[in-house]
């Protein structure tokens, strides 16, 4: 299980092998994101931080853009991080990763720093990633000379600032900017941005893009390990149930992640060197081995959809069906070939 460095390029270590963990019992004990952060009870994004750091290991620098995982984790004097961590601006996860990787590369090449593979991970929320930071992430994914991972923890709203709708919020969700009112039941009418495929399709030299959910923790950690092994810039999109913004009892964080996958609302896949691979239950759905659960099993468990009436649920179901039945690559690419 040794982490082997296999290749050097330009005097700068390009790839490494972080082997996949076989199951939860092979996951190491060490924590690099530990207790004492100030997130909500049952915060799935905090779990993303913990397991992302665990998957990456100690020789890692983490950059965190503005959002819950900045504000609630690192209130001054207080930090849960035992790997080096630095704040970056809301739209800057791509730039933070690029700058950190570029700095390390220059210093190592010029002999000003000991040569070593140091993992660079920048995380952002959906507001920082799918909205404000999209252009910087796009630029970062073009820089094949830098090893970096951008991880978007998507809790489907600007949760830190009191739950405002983002481009990644699901259709119809209640938020402080899209409250159902006397005249309008549905204020947020945009369909959720398809961020991971957009980035994968738009950056053909990016070797690894994946979707994860921490309800499938080992798979998610292995995605992080693969992203850090493959070389060049990589992107992971994590769906994080959020008890505060989605409005549910925090003990259901894990279960809602499972339901998102089982209803087909959140497909799990990896796009590795141009090849797409569904995994977990999403693979079984695509292969016809598992029937998708109705979306209402997921929607009616969350207070943010409590204002939905039957027609809203039907619309949501129809749009989800379309993803799996009409799309060129089911659940991933929203085109269909002209007949």
């Amino acid at each position, binding site marked *: 299980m040794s982490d082997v460095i296999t290749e050097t390029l330009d005097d700068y270590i390009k790839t490494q092998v972080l082997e996949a963990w076989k199951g*939860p*019992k092979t*996951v190491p*004990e*060490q*924590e*690099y*994101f*530990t*207790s*004492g*952060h*100030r*997130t*909500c*009870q*049952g*915060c*799935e994004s*905090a*779990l993303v931080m*913990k*397991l992302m750091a665990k998957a990456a290991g*100690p020789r890692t620098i983490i950059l965190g853009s503005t959002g819950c995982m900045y*504000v*609630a984790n690192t*209130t*001054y*004097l*207080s*930090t*849960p*991080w*035992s*790997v*080096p*961590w630095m704040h970056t601006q809301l739209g800057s996860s791509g730039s933070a990763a690029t700058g950190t990787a570029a700095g390390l590369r220059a210093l190592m090449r010029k002999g000003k720093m000991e040569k070593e593979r140091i993992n660079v991970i920048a995380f952002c929320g959906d507001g920082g990633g799918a909205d404000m930071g999209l252009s910087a992430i796009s630029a970062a994914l073009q820089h094949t000379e830098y090893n970096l991972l951008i991880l978007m923890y998507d809790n489907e709203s600007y949760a*830190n600032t*009191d*739950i405002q709708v983002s481009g990644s919020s699901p259709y119809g969700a*209640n938020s402080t900017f899209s409250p159902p009112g006397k005249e309008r039941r549905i204020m947020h009418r945009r369909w959720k941005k398809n961020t991971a495929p957009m980035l994968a399709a738009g950056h053909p030299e990016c070797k690894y893009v994946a979707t994860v959910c*921490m309800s499938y*923790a080992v798979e998610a950690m292995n995605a992080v390990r693969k992203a850090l092994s493959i070389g060049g810039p990589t992107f992971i999109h994590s769906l994080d149930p959020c*008890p*505060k*913004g989605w*409005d*549910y*009892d*925090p*003990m*259901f*964080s*894990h279960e809602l992640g499972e339901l998102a996958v089982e209803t087909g609302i959140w497909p799990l896949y990896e796009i590795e060197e141009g090849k797409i691979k569904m995994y977990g239950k999403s693979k079984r759905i695509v292969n016809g081995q598992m029937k998708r659960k109705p979306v209402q099993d997921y929607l*009616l*468990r*969350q*207070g943010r*959809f*409590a204002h939905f009436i039957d027609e809203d649920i039907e619309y949501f179901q129809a749009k989800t069906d379309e993803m799996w039945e009409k799309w060129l690559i089911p659940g991933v690419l929203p085109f269909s070939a002209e007949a």
Partner: protein
Amino acid sequence: MSTGSVEVVYRGIFQKTLAKNICRGVVFAAKKEGKIGTAFGRYSDSPERNGIPAKQFAVVSDTHDELQEHLARYEPDNNDVTIACDDALCKGVESWAWYGLQPINKLLKKGGTLLVTSFQSPNKLINFIHRKGEPYNLALVRAAASFSGLWVYKDDHTDARLLGALAKVAPHIVGIDAICEVIKEQWKDDLKVASARKTYEATETIPVSADQGNEEVPFEFEKPGWKTMEEGLVIRGISAEQQKVEGWEGGYVPTRNPTFKKFSTRTMRPVINFDTCIKCTLCWLQCPDSCFDITPDGLYDANMEACCGCGVCEAVCPVEDCVTMVNEEAFDDNASQWEMWVKDKKGYETWMTEKISDKPPRSHGFHHVGQYAEETADEST
């Protein structure tokens, strides 16, 4: 000529609407009596989290100038009444906006009243509450903590009942008639008005003497000045080395953040049946707060300084009744369950069985659409 202020301590997002209803109710009712008032949240507690303690205040005065005098500070620090919306807050509150544990009665004035929703006996609560050093009163509203989230409010009349109780313990701030009038206006619900009046009549106060209560000195931290703070916005990370704890050799106890412990967020805690644990690791792996220590024998022990009681461990555990969430006020300390179990397995079983069986219903919030209507219907029957 007088000013009265009420501090409402609550569980962040879970009780934000509840706290807002109480504070607004106080101000509107005082207005009916010809007073002037205002209500506001402690800004540093926002953005609120779910579970993590937060505060709102209502201040009412006879005159505008008196009101201003009371408001010319960051927060009212000399309150006539402190309302704790969850009795587990009596163990102290650690808001994410300050450093250390604040006793629930810290901002209560001498002779003021601490009003708590609880099914516990007053003496049990007094044992949790830090010693104030000054006499004050305790009043209980017999109710479980009412939790609901941002979007769907569980209208189980807790707001009305607390307002009714407030009129009893602090009639100089606001009287019951004005409270009832406002509730009627706001909710147009006679049952809610009746709840307020009934609670008003039932509420009694118990005097608490200066030296009664928990002797423990709550942890806090000295805030350094600019000359000693590190420059460049740098703070030192947590050590990645495990803690050396006697009796835990061969296990794994991570180093934890010493400046924020989070246990005051907890309203329930996991009780673990070590005999049925299959060591699947899921509680440990899926805990967002890294609160599980790995024991030398490969079991998982929830560290009670770090656990915030979310209940994910209970949800992910594949073994029935291996992890059971139990109300926080059933416990007097944060001691290790595993150490207790190792020392005396028979005794632990007895202790555990008692804790698990004596478990009043409590939930952190929303489970499904329609749930609150069902529950409030049940409660009214």
